[in-house]
């Protein structure tokens, strides 16, 4: 009883501190001194440490309480700028994600159709043997930690001389990257979450932060509730939980965003309300020539204007369904210099066959109207995964990339990479590997017919559930001779179920780690508890395979001096055999990998600080520069004088990676194009897929947390009430959905959590018992190669039970 009372009073102290913080009476000093509450742990014998939340790209920090080798408490970290002590329902339960009963705890090999336990030694041998053969690919993740991704990239590109590595982030934020590259010549947002605290207008472009980035959303709503005049505008194909809080909800036809952005730009020019001074000083205009490229070709202001001429408000209404008055309202706002406007987007604009184009267009209206470069004035993409920016975009775990934003096709970049890796010239292959869809397509094609991928090693992701058009891009591989699927994961998943070899992984605070969130913030944490059974770190698995290849005589596993590619020296200068699990934590391998990776980050001005700086901080936003006083300081707003140290004095704004090499950003002309598949008489409904707040992506962790699972136990099809009437279904009835690619039955939820317009259905993808990706389309953006999960055509029929 006494203990319980103590726990309750400690809990009240924590809540009181958080309430004070929310009320503006923050107890945490600006210098980051230990707040009083740190002396008041919930349980008196808990040991607390910091870590970013395991789940989404918001990158909240939690404090993790460990007792007797087990995570027993979590609390929002008051010292974290991102979440200021708050967490969403997933973060609140993140500690429980470790303790599902069916954790994978030993390697398993498929023999006679069954997965049977084998030793780690045998498992590593099998992976090494497959890696020696042609057609070996690594399929990684935006949930890989930064050191894991770096180790995977180095193993493939510096060791095997192969670029067949691509991540699941190809499916989630690749179009944001190509959008940034085509406009600024370098990726990731110029602004940061501080923009959310300063904007007067926030526009959601196909974005539902109330469910996908809830802590950021509550940061915005808090301002509204406090009486601040912040206008929220939702532009999307269905109403969502976010819409209810918005001042304007503009429901558009799928792909209508292209027309809306062009319509705004046209009105700005027609009315003369664009920011001529900003455009003259800092922008240039681009369009595709006969042969489209990411850089495009220069066009004049007049050509740009001419290209926009068709996008009258009336024509935009035809294409998008958005009323002319609403379009004028948006143009009015962009035309005002006294307002600060932030645009937010995520999958709605990225999972789009014109993803690069719509990203560039939204950047374009910000540039054209001068809504750029002041806190609160920013076009900002949000990433879905915890380290999509950190591990994919920055570490370059892409088929065409090298760490630090370098490219395999560029001879100078290859030279730089080979120098840092100390490998012979020519080791890095100049030919990009296969991007995700192509990799899986070739894995599903017989070798004799061009299927040149024979083995895929999947880490920290679940393509058996997330690939589009599963019946074409995953299932066929399981029937072809010679195709071998290796999966490293923490729980049984739709992918481990069809794998040939399953490797059990450590997760989150069972290992050291680093993530990079949506706002360029690099975060670090230490291992706090042991993984279960024989589960082991993904970075260890990669290093162990590299060493096995080395021992089998693979020439790529040695550097120019004959040393092992991943040689790690201990404090005495002698090599530590980190490929042996019992020695893996003799040194901090994460720190060693990170310090090597850090050398790449200066090329594109994405400078990272030494590892030790991240140990002290709740993340730092790059570029992190050491100032004259010796202090490493982060950068909140890039390309802006006074904020970004790389901007020349008196430049004001300088796009120093400009593709036109003149410090200018590119404003693109991208005409509207129709989606690749539209409803017709045979398949009359639009189908949109997405996420729900309770579940993290494919639900492999969150469906094992009973509280989350019970509150959202299974997938459903969200149906407009009028459509439900017409189809003769009520809540709980089952609808059979069918596309040109597959069929699926789902329970009906009329209007659901969102409100789809007539003719539109929505299905979440978290449920492995109802795989919506048997229906989706594999068509992808020509530059980012990111597929469109937001729009395809289906038909629906009531299931009549017999």
């Amino acid at each position, binding site marked *: 009883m006494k203990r319980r009372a103590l726990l309750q009073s400690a809990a*009240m102290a924590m*809540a009181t501190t958080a309430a004070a913080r*929310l009320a503006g009476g923050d107890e945490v000093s600006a210098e980051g001194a230990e707040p009083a509450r740190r002396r008041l742990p919930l349980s008196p014998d808990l040991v607390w440490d910091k870590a970013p939340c395991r789940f989404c790209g918001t990158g909240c920090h939690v404090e993790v309480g460990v007792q007797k080798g087990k995570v027993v408490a979590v609390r929002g970290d008051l010292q974290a700028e991102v979440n200021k002590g708050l967490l969403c329902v997933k973060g609140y339960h993140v500690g429980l994600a470790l303790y599902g009963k069916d954790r994978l705890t030993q390697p398993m090999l498929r023999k006679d159709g069954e997965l049977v336990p084998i030793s780690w030694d045998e498992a590593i041998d099998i992976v090494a043997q497959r890696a020696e053969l042609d057609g070996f690919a690594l399929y990684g993740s935006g949930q890989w930690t930064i050191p894991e991704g770096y180790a995977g990239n180095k193993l493939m590109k510096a060791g095997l001389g192969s670029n067949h590595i691509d991540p699941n982030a190809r499916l989630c934020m690749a179009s944001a990257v190509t959008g940034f590259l085509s406009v600024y010549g370098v990726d990731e947002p110029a602004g940061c979450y501080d923009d959310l605290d300063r904007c007067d207008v926030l526009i959601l472009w196909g974005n539902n932060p109330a469910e996908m980035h809830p802590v950021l959303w509550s940061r915005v709503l808090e301002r509204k509730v406090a009486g601040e005049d912040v206008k929220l505008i939702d532009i999307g194909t269905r109403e969502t939980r976010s819409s209810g809080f918005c001042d304007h909800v503009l429901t558009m036809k799928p792909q209508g965003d292209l027309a809306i952005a062009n319509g705004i730009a046209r009105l700005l020019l027609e009315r003369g309300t664009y920011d001529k001074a900003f455009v003259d000083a800092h922008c240039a205009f681009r369009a595709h020539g006969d042969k489209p490229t990411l850089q495009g070709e220069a066009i004049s202001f007049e050509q740009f204007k001419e290209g926009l001429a068709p996008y009258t408000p009336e024509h935009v209404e035809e294409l998008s369904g958005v009323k002319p008055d609403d379009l004028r309202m948006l143009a009015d706002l962009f035309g005002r210099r006294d307002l600060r406007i932030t645009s937010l987007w995520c999958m709605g604009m990225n999972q789009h066959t014109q993803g690069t184009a719509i990203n560039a267009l939204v950047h374009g209206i910000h540039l054209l109207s001068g809504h750029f470069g002041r806190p609160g004035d920013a076009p900002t993409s949000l990433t879905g995964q915890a380290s999509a920016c950190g591990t994919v975009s920055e570490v370059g775990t892409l088929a065409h990339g090298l760490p630090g934003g370098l490219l395999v096709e560029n001879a100078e970049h290859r030279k730089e990479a080979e120098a840092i890796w100390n490998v012979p010239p020519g080791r890095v292959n100049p030919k990009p590997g296969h991007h995700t869809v192509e990799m899986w397509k070739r894995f599903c094609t017989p070798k004799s017919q061009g299927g040149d991928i024979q083995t895929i090693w999947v880490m920290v992701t679940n393509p058996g559930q997330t690939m589009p058009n599963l019946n074409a891009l995953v299932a066929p591989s399981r029937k072809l001779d010679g195709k071998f699927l290796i999966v490293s994961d923490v729980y049984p998943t739709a992918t481990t179920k069809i794998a040939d070899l399953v490797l059990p992984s450590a997760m989150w605070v069972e290992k050291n780690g680093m993530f990079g969130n949506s706002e360029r913030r690099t975060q670090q944490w230490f291992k706090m508890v042991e993984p279960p059974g024989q589960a082991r770190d993904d970075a260890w698995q990669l290093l162990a395979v590299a060493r096995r290849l080395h021992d089998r005589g693979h020439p790529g596993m040695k550097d120019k001096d004959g040393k092992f590619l991943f040689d790690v020296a201990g404090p005495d200068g002698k090599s530590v055999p980190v490929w042996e699990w019992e020695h893996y934590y003799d040194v901090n391998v994460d720190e060693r990998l990170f310090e090597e990776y850090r050398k790449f980050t200066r090329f594109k001005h994405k400078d990272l600080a030494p590892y030790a700086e991240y140990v002290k901080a709740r993340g730092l936003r790059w570029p992190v520069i050491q100032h004259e006083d010796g202090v490493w300081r982060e950068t909140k707003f890039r390309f802006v004088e006074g904020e970004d140290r790389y901007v020349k004095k008196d430049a004001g704004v300088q796009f120093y990676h400009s593709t036109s090499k003149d410090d200018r950003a590119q404003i693109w002309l991208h005409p509207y194009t129709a989606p690749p598949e539209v409803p017709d008489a045979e398949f009359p409904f639009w189908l949109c897929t997405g996420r729900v707040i309770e579940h993290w992506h494919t639900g492999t962790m969150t469906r094992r947390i009973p509280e989350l699972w019970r509150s959202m136990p299974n997938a459903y099809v969200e149906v407009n009430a009028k459509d439900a009437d017409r189809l003769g279904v009520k809540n709980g009835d089952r609808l059979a959905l069918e596309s040109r690619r597959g069929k699926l039955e789902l329970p009906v939820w009329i209007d659901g959590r969102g409100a789809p317009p007539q003719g539109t259905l929505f299905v979440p993808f978290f449920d492995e018992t109802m795989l919506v990706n048997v229906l989706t389309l594999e068509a992808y953006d020509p530059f980012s190669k990111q597929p469109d999960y937001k729009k395809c055509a289906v038909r629906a029929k009531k299931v009549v039970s017999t």
Partner: protein
Amino acid sequence: MPISSVVVTLSQDGVVAEAALSILSADPRWTLGAPNGRHVPAVLDTTSLEDAVSLTEDALRIDGVQFVDVVGVDFSDLSEQEAT
């Protein structure tokens, strides 16, 4: 028997906020602390995390409750989670 620390944010309308506060005070499952402006610290001592979640969801339905933020949870007494 998890213990959750939460902050209830009340609406700006004093009358509705007052009414919400009295509804919460009357519920024995809620232990309320001293309000700081519109932000009221509270502790939920429930038999399961599920109960804690549904209590916070119920609170959100009360007129005058703007948000309920969960800032920490101690689940040291919970046994191993069941797989679905």
